[in-house]
């Protein structure tokens, strides 16, 4: 027996060795599968002394950051070798929480600037997981002070201290109503400019059958997620989730115009002018109906225009489509919601090993020439410049700068909106659609989200999503006739008790001080 035990011990030992030796082998073996890291690093002649290697965490993108041309350019220009990791596309918050909680030594972390991520950021800052950037900026961030909009910097503060470099969103109108021009011509009408004209046009679409679909014409199709139809909502003075009513920030449901809006849309629905399947429509189903020639109008984002236009003309070669202008309501109100706020937030966690270098790196990326090249490339190679207009050179622009926006850690807020247009000019249809909504329309129709630069408001952030869904569902039911406006007071009471009241007070406390 003793003999046997010895052997078993040997076996266990051998097993152990077997595993460890494999571990050792493969840790050498694995890199052969990972893509070869950028070769350009070796011939960077400018760098005099070796700078510390930085580790950053980024938002998900399709291509690997490390092999993307922008990464190589930045390494050459700033002298910092950077390892880019990325968050997953699915539930990035969860992964981020784990990484922050376990103190992963990232030197810079860039996240989205939307309400939910803003809440995460404030939470980290308050719990002391982030480095306060003020002193670092004073020392190493002259460019940050010079080019980033002070209003954005102010809005990114938590309890009066700055913990993140904000990248401001370019304030765009994104969504409006897109109409079949050839249908308009067939029914002999002009593009609608008021709500009444819209009703008339939709009626003509239904009755005169310009699409040749018989009684299957859908005058207007909208995806179910959009309980408030952009552009139409603007004509009632409620383009954004919250709007100023007599000096008070008011959510749509509490807005006196809400009832008028619901009446108008449910009237469209009753007359058969709005898609019967409105509530059930997914984004893709609405697009199917429009591109197959069944629908005369669709609520559409300008970024979808090239694909939609291609699919439409393939199915119906004579089809033509364009956006309608901002519709006017009965007292001349009109408005298109424009995004306002942060696109990204970049912070340095306490676990960082090189916070000073990280700040120098962020600062170096905002150097005028570096920033220009990083975002849209090199003149006459990636773009041409004429009369202040940047036009991309394809296909190299798309190949090498398409994902450049993901490399932003703060932006030159005066110039970037101009550079950025090069990205829209990569397809002229895209550009025209964007230009129509954002440049050709009178400036007062563009209504920026008034809460975009609000500081972190805990009550508001907590219930924002949930209340929106609640109001959206209710509005949809009113439109369909499943609920009656007589029950509105009861619903408002419910809305208030489920966080609506607290949000309202919190938002207006801030708004009162912000207006001054």
């Amino acid at each position, binding site marked *: 027996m003793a003999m046997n035990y010895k*052997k078993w011990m040997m076996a266990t030992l051998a097993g152990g060795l077997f595993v460890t030796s494999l571990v050792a082998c493969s840790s050498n073996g694995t890199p052969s*599968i*990972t893509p070869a890291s950028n070769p350009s690093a070796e011939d960077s002649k400018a760098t005099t002394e070796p700078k510390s290697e930085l580790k950053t965490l980024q938002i998900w993108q*399709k291509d690997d950051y490390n092999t993307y041309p922008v990464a190589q350019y930045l390494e050459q220009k700033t002298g910092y070798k950077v390892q880019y990791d990325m968050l997953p596309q699915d539930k990035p918050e969860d992964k981020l929480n784990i990484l922050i909680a376990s103190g992963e030594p990232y030197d810079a972390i860039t996240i989205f600037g939307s309400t939910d*991520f803003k809440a995460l950021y404030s939470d980290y800052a308050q719990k002391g997981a982030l480095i306060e950037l003020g002193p670092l900026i004073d020392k190493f961030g002259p460019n940050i002070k010079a080019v980033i909009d002070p209003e954005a910097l102010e809005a990114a503060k938590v309890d009066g201290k700055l913990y993140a470099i904000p990248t401001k969103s370019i304030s765009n109108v994104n969504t409006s109503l897109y109409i079949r021009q050839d249908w308009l011509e067939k029914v002999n009408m002009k593009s609608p400019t008021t709500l009444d004209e819209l009703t008339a046009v939709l009626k003509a679409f239904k009755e005169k059958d310009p699409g040749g679909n018989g009684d299957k014409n859908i005058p207007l199709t909208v995806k179910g997620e959009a309980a408030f139809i952009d552009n139409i909502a603007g004509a009632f003075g409620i383009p954004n989730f919250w709007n100023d009513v007599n000096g008070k920030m008011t959510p749509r449901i509490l807005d006196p115009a809400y009832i008028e809006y619901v009446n108008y849309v449910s009237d469209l629905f009753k007359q058969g002018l709005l898609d019967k399947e409105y509530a059930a429509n997914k984004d*893709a189903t609405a697009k199917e109906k429009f591109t197959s020639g069944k629908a005369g109008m669709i609520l559409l984002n300008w970024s979808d225009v090239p694909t939609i236009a291609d699919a439409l003309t393939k199915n119906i070669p004579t089809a033509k489509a364009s956006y309608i202008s901002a519709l006017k309501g009965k007292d001349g109100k009109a408005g298109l919601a424009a995004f306002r706020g942060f*696109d990204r937030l970049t912070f340095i966690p306490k676990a960082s090993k090189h916070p000073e270098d990280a700040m120098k790196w962020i600062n170096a990326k905002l150097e005028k020439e570096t920033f220009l090249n990083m975002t849209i490339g090199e003149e006459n190679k990636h773009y041409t410049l004429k009369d202040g207009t940047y036009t991309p050179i394809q296909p190299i622009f798309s190949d090498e700068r398409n994902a450049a926006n993901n490399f932003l850690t703060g932006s030159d807020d005066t110039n970037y909106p101009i550079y950025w247009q090069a990205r829209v000019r990569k397809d002229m249809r895209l550009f025209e659609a964007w230009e129509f909504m954002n440049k050709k329309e009178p400036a007062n129709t563009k209504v920026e989200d008034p809460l975009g630069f609000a500081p972190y408001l805990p009550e508001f952030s907590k219930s924002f999503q949930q209340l929106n869904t609640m109001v959206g569902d209710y509005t949809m039911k009113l439109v369909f006739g499943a609920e009656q406006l007589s029950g509105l007071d009861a619903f408002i009471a419910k809305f208030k008790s489920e966080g609506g009241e607290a949000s309202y007070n919190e938002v207006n406390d801030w708004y009162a001080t912000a207006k001054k």
Partner: protein
Amino acid sequence: MHKKTIRDRSLDLFIYLFLLLMGVVTLLPIATVLSKAVSDESAVISGKVGIFPVGFQLQTMKYVISSSQFITSIGISILVMIVGTVLAIALTALTAYPLSKRYLPGISFIMLLFVFTMLFNGGIIPNYLLMKELHLINSLWSLILPALISVFNMLVIKSYYESLPESLEESAKIDGASNFTILFRIVIPLSGPVLATIALFYAVYYWNDYFNPMLYINDAGLKPLQLYLRDIVMDADSSSALNKSADDMMNASPEGVRSATVIASIIPMLLVYPYLQKHFVKGVLIGSVKG
């Protein structure tokens, strides 16, 4: 042999037709994705593509298969699957053998320790911290090591060993065979089918594993296929649209590309499965008959 009556035959026919229909129904979703992958993008957008492709083209497939991220991911997945399965099956089989010997002292206590891990474990954060302290974050070993021994699989092998007649080992011992000879020349060859089955379980586990890489892998060059797929399929999902800037919207992958990625990613498994499944069925059967 007794003759089949008309009633039997018609019943057979009905059963065959019914099973055929069921088979076709399960294939439908795959067929739609496949035809979306090889159809013209504008046909996909206008919702014209059902079971059959419209405007057949292979450009999208080509684009997906030649994308460097896709090739990297599939390579990582294959590597993890092969190394993981080989190590896991070896360790599981070796662990099960001594545990199947009831006469070894303290064996029931050791068994208890194994079973304990089936019921209780540390949870996500402690596991993450463990991996971090072991410096396995961003290493493929973080995907392989945690799953090396699945206690359940180990128990299956153990009970199979126990079902082998004891007299077989005794007679080998009388002939002068050592414990190793018995294990490697008698027990393991006799356990071929059950080992193949368990190997398949491990292979499928490693191939499908999404959660571990999601936690432990941040480097895009080390992402296995499941992670890559999830990212691609989520890309155009409108539920995440709240976070998307105009730039992200402009760069979202069209539905055709997503379908093509899904199709391309199931090809390796489709190629391997028929060969493995033979063993799979045999393994389960032999085990049950002998046991």
